[in-house]
């Protein structure tokens, strides 16, 4: 009985390992969407980005004129945008919807208008 249980456990572990390898392989085949953005007083370009749920994304954001922030609280994304140095945010959206983002480092008179949205579809 003990020998039978041991074989069952070994089989389970082997199958789990196979599943892990398969998943990694599937993910590795997923194309990563790269979205380049710029930020300057008082706008992001583009300020609306459409993504697909489950597709890995790299946001590459470059501040053109001064330090800005990028904050998308609903997706848990945040970065400082130092002038001239692209900031990279990697994530895979797991839920659909419209998720606003904004500049969270005060940058001047139009700071409150510096905003956009990430739209995630199925």
């Amino acid at each position, binding site marked *: 009985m003990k020998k039978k249980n041991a074989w069952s456990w070994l089989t389970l572990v082997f199958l789990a390992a196979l599943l892990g390898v398969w998943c990694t392989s599937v993910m590795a085949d997923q194309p990563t969407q790269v979205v380049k953005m710029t930020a300057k007083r008082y706008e992001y370009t583009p300020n609306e980005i459409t993504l697909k749920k489950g597709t890995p994304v790299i946001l590459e954001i470059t501040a053109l004129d001064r*330090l800005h*922030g990028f*904050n998308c*609280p*609903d997706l848990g994304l945040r970065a*400082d945008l130092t002038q001239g140095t692209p900031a990279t945010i990697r994530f895979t959206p797991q839920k659909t919807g419209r998720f*606003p983002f*904004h*500049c*969270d*480092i*005060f*940058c*001047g*008179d139009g*700071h*409150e*208008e510096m*905003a956009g949205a990430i739209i995630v579809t199925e």
Partner: protein
Amino acid sequence: MKAIDRREFLKLAGIGGVVFASGLGSMAFAADKKAGMEDFFFVQLSDTHWGFDGAKANPDARGTLQKAVAAVNSLQKQPDFIVFTGDLTQTTDDPQERRKRLGEFKEIISQLKVKNIRFMPGEHDASLDNGAAFKEFFGDTHYTFNHKGINFIVLDNVSDPTASVGEAQLLWLGTVLKKFDTNDRIVIFTHRPLFDLYPQWDWATRDGAKVMDMLMPYRNVTIFYGHIHQEHHHVTAHIPHHAAKSLIFPLPAPGSVPKRAPVLWDPAMPYKGLGFRGIAAEKAKKEFAITEYPVIKG
């Protein structure tokens, strides 16, 4: 000064309004008239944004502050002190213009009868130069004072443009709080919300949670702030937060519309959503009674 009861206080204060009891406990006014105990009240004004120019939001941007000064001066009983919770001026990139606006603001509010006035910056006043100009006109951006047994702490969450209090100020806060007993009454004045009111609109403080953690052991803390241009009340555990209306234009309720933008002026209801508040400290009850006043009597 003799102790006064609530009805007499409200009569003395003049214009009525909705009275909100802050803190735990009932609204019953103190019947305890122990010798030496007295009530007092102070006035909070916020987000005056002197220098703002936008007729669709406020065609009287150059006159609203003066009207607020007149309204405070017309209270039948004058407050013990007045506090401005930030965004005194509208931001500008020009350091000279920034100082001009701070100077003009200071000149206008010098007409207040009460000379005991406390100030703190908002991001519009301080975020572009780390508070340098503000300090020239109004002194320290964070400090403490005691008034009739209540400990007041002014926190600066705007001179750092990332909307943070910062480690140095947190250390300072720690040394201040160590001097207090956990039952002492503490009032925090600050500009931005210290909790995540609506981060999607930047209505938060990046290290606000650290501040709240430091305040949690203290049983009688109340926070008054501005920034969001509307009356708002929230409680974190036992600590109430009260946001004040602005004196320039209202903003929408959090998340009520897609974009955070000024609520436009309604000529049929001028100055709607603008105002200031009186806060009555009831020493025996350890709670505050808040009265909201309009800029213009309706």
